[in-house]
């Protein structure tokens, strides 16, 4: 895999691992992130991994970019022999349909399925968290079954509650914060994707897999109460 090194202004570098969205390219990005973090380089201010790039932000008053480039290239040589810790599947409870998922019926109808079919298909795939971005805690997910793909609403809703689970085209996702948006809402999770008062602050990290599972109203309320009380343990299992 040939990496490309591209400056992004005077205090960030992009290391580009490919030109496509694929698990292979994304794996290189995540390996590179881990490898560079291990170096503990002075002057690095932040990392922004995405689908096919790693952006490395640095302070040019602390570290010379030519020196950084050399270190990047040296670290890149180690990627071939490097392995990442086993990926985890994060189990995400979802109350499908009703007031929590007002577009479930539309998604079913659009695809010639029943609502039960949509729930079954949506909750049977493991979706890779390729990256986070857009708003704090928002995951760009891969792996949704095309049989439930549905275009966005033409007119976005003004207010979508945090935790809403939706479909936009061939993508599924969860709204971490209350926000406007045009996604087809099929359900809601009682989990909090972002809480600045807990450690860690974010539920997901790039490289995790998300598996949705249906819960009824009673279970949803029980989990929501446990989340609010700080006692809920999110279920994580190793990815097979």
């Amino acid at each position, binding site marked *: 895999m040939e990496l490309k090194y591209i400056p992004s202004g005077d205090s960030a570098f992009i290391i580009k691992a490919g030109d496509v969205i694929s698990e292979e390219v994304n794996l290189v990005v995540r390996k590179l992130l881990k490898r560079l973090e291990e170096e503990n380089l002075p002057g690095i*201010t932040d990392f922004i991994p995405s689908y096919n790039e790693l952006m490395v932000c640095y302070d040019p008053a602390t570290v010379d970019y030519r020196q950084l480039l050399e270190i990047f290239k040296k670290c890149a040589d180690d990627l071939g022999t490097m392995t990442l810790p086993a990926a985890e599947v994060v189990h995400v409870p979802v109350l499908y349909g009703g007031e929590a998922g007002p577009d479930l019926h539309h998604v079913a109808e659009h695809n010639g399925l029943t609502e039960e079919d949509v729930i079954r298909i949506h909750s049977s795939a493991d979706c890779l968290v390729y990256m986070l971005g857009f708003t704090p805690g928002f995951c760009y997910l891969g792996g949704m079954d095309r049989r439930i793909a549905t275009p966005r609403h033409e007119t976005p809703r003004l207010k979508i509650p945090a935790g809403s689970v939706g479909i936009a085209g061939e993508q599924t996702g969860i709204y971490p914060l209350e926000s406007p948006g045009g996604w087809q809402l099929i359900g809601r999770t009682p989990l909090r994707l972002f809480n*600045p008062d807990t450690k860690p602050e974010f539920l997901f990290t790039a490289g995790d897999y998300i598996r949705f599972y249906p819960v009824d109203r009673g279970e949803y309320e029980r989990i929501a109460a446990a989340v609010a009380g700080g006692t809920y343990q999110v279920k994580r299992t190793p990815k097979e």
Partner: protein
Amino acid sequence: MATLIVHTAGLLTTVQDRGRYGYQRYGMPVSGAMDTFSLELANLLVGNDPGKTCLEATITGPELEFTGATWLAISGADMDPHLNGQGIPMNTAIDARPGDRLGFRGLKSGCRSYIAFAGGIAVPPVMGSRSTYLRAGIGGFQGRALMPGDELPLGGSDHLSPFDQLSTDTVKRKPRVIKLPEGLIPEYKHEQTIRVISGPEAHYFEIAGLRSFLSAEYTVTARSDRMGYRLSGEPIKHKEDMTNIISAGISLGTVQVPGDGQPIILMADRQTSGGYARIANVITADLTLIAQMRPGDMIHFKETTMDMAQRHYIDRCNIFTGT
């Protein structure tokens, strides 16, 4: 401990430091001062570390009352500050006493003022920073812009000399003047030349598009905010079907160009990632100029090299470290 009582809030006054780093991988914007140079300068004048927490006031300033003694300094936009009705100079440490009122008569230049207090503002840090991120409602003072009636805790004033602490209202007040190097404070003009470095997707644009970008004038529109400066001018032409990229990281000062050809400069509250072609990056040293521009002001972009850009930045850093 001294506090700050907010009588009027101004258009948009927030608590900011140099920003929240380390969480961009989770989609958390950096936030922080739009004009970090002025923030650092104001802090320097009151004897703080350059990254201490300040107030960032936008276009119209707040009216504040002090419940205890402190030093304050104002850098950035000149909003004609006054203390108890008396005009006070910009970029100068001013001795404030209990009951003193700080106000602003109106904007004379720039867009954002930074008000530093000795010891900073003692709001609790959130994820390593005291900066306000308005969209998620976190950091700063209760995660929001200041409102009338707010009372903000000021940091300890341990830097004051014993003499300062003993001084009373009968002692003649003196601004504490630190001589600033000539030409240090940039002139906030309505037309600015802004230096850029070629961006990762410069090759997504037609030659004519790149020519437009580097020769036409772009106006700052009213849809500019802490997230980004949206400009309007001669459309920058992409090559066919080369408008969007796979969503990827955005750095401070990235200039992205959506399909309509109108550039956006990404600023403090920028999203961590975006899907538009990144034509260029504003150099760090010139971000202070952008942050002081208002709707209606004009920008002319000029290309420079990474080495030049870094030299300007490092020269500026040396002002604060004294080397």
